[in-house]
């Protein structure tokens, strides 16, 4: 069964028709990378999946549950999805360990020491073992983003949404974050990721979806999309982004 299914999803901001009937299905353990120009609807797509934006039409299913039904418990749905943002959005007033364990403790009711043990082992695994007691402002951007990823995966979400997680990073720091995503894929996480890192998309994606004009215009394996794009818009986009 698909972890995530979108059927004819529309989203409007006033007259601005941002999503124009998105159909998409993501299987378990699949890594889907969404590419497309700014304004093509990538971020809005992510936000509708996490119910931060309400869809104006269509249906979204998470492991078969209709999360766009009006009586759905939004917080419960969000608890099943991990999100990592472009600007990390760590809470500056609490330590790394408390950032990472917050949701587990106050949303999922995990015992504090259980959450802490798991957080420490994950942080150690991703090379952040010596940052556990630090406040976020003591960390580099790459370290902050890795902490944000640990925060998102601590409760084993069914689906992980990564929204341009390397766009705000110094080029030197992009690699360490992408390596972490590679580890997550190896562990079998189900991931939907929007990115401009084409070489990374090519190496890690099971499937590439090219968004254009508010809908997935073309999708396929990295070999298909990068090697033999079918749509003229896809070809144009790839030409622009790879020959800048």
């Amino acid at each position, binding site marked *: 069964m698909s972890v995530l299914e979108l059927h*004819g999803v*529309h989203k409007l*901001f006033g007259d601005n*028709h941002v999503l*124009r*009937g*998105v*159909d998409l299905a993501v299987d378990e353990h699949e890594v889907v990378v969404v590419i497309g120009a700014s304004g093509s609807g990538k971020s809005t797509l992510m*936000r509708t999946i996490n*119910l*931060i*934006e*309400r869809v*104006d*039409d*269509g*249906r979204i299913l998470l492991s078969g549950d209709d999360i*766009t*039904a*009006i009586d759905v418990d939004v917080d419960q749905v969000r608890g099943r999805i991990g999100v990592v943002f472009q600007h990390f959005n760590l809470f500056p007033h609490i330590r790394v360990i408390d950032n990472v364990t917050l949701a587990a403790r106050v949303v999922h009711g995990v015992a504090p020491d259980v959450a802490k043990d798991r957080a420490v082992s994950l942080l150690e695994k991703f090379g952040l073992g010596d940052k556990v007691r630090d406040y976020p402002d003591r960390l580099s951007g790459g370290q902050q983003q890795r902490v944000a990823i640990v925060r998102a995966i601590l409760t084993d979400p069914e689906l992980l949404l990564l929204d341009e997680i390397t766009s705000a990073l110094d080029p030197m720091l992009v690699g360490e974050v992408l390596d972490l995503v590679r580890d997550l894929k190896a562990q079998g996480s189900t991931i939907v990721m929007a990115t401009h890192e084409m070489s990374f998309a090519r190496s890690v994606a099971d499937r590439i979806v090219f968004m254009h*004009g508010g*809908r*997935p*215009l*073309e*999708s396929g394996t990295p070999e298909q999309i990068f090697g033999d794009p079918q749509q003229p818009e896809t070809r144009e986009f790839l030409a622009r982004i790879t020959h800048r």
Partner: protein
Amino acid sequence: MTDRAADAVWEVSRLELDRRLQRKRASRRSVLIALVSTVVFAAAAGWLVVSSPNWDTVQQTFFNPEIAVESFPKVLEGLWLNIRVLFFASIAVAVVGTLLAVMRSLRGPVWFPLRALATGYTDLFRGLPVLIVLYLVGFGIPGLNPEVRIPVAVLGTIAISLCYSAYVAEVLRAGMEAVHPSQRIAARSLGLSHAKTLRLVVIPQALRKVVPALMNDFVSMQKDVGLISVLGAVDAIRSAQIIQAQTYNFTPYVVAGLLFVALSWPMIRLTDAVSARMARREQQGGTV
């Protein structure tokens, strides 16, 4: 992949129409529940008040209709004095408060005396009870030279302005400090002087941040102008007091109080609306 021919038309699906209908029903239900619960609550509260012992005496003492009608024109006339005091005090507070805030934000050792003066002023007048300032200015200053007669309303305006300038200066300073340092750096790197940076970049952004707090101070000042009655100025409160002394009935105070509430109410609502609008602008989109 989606069919590109389907680009042009999007007809809202049955699913969405059904969802909209359900949402409308749910919101109608909420309105109805709110309505019923309000009516029940108001009825219960009203019954509790009216059925309490001695309600008749309470009504006669505080809510006497004849005395209310009789005192209304006098109290309203007094309120006009309060409004004039408020008008001039607001202008004075705006000017002095801004000056103080700018003085406190001056950098460099040369400005230390001004900075210290402004800091001392705000510390002093924020700590000093308004009533003491009113007594000192209203009764103390005329005592210095009995030949010059300054109207008590003017003295009251000065006393209120002295106090509120300190509060407003602090609010403005907090706003100026809340403007991100990168904004100053950007302005200075364009060659703007410290003064021009303040005037054209920092203060406009600071004002926007502190509008709700400033409006709150204004609302607070709207009622505190009533304190000038202690100096003998015949304002709304003093007028009410005079009638109360004649009739031994407290209804005029209630009338004056309601007039003060009516005076500040538009500003209170406006403050709420402005705050709500700013909150909306800051969290663009999203229903979190």
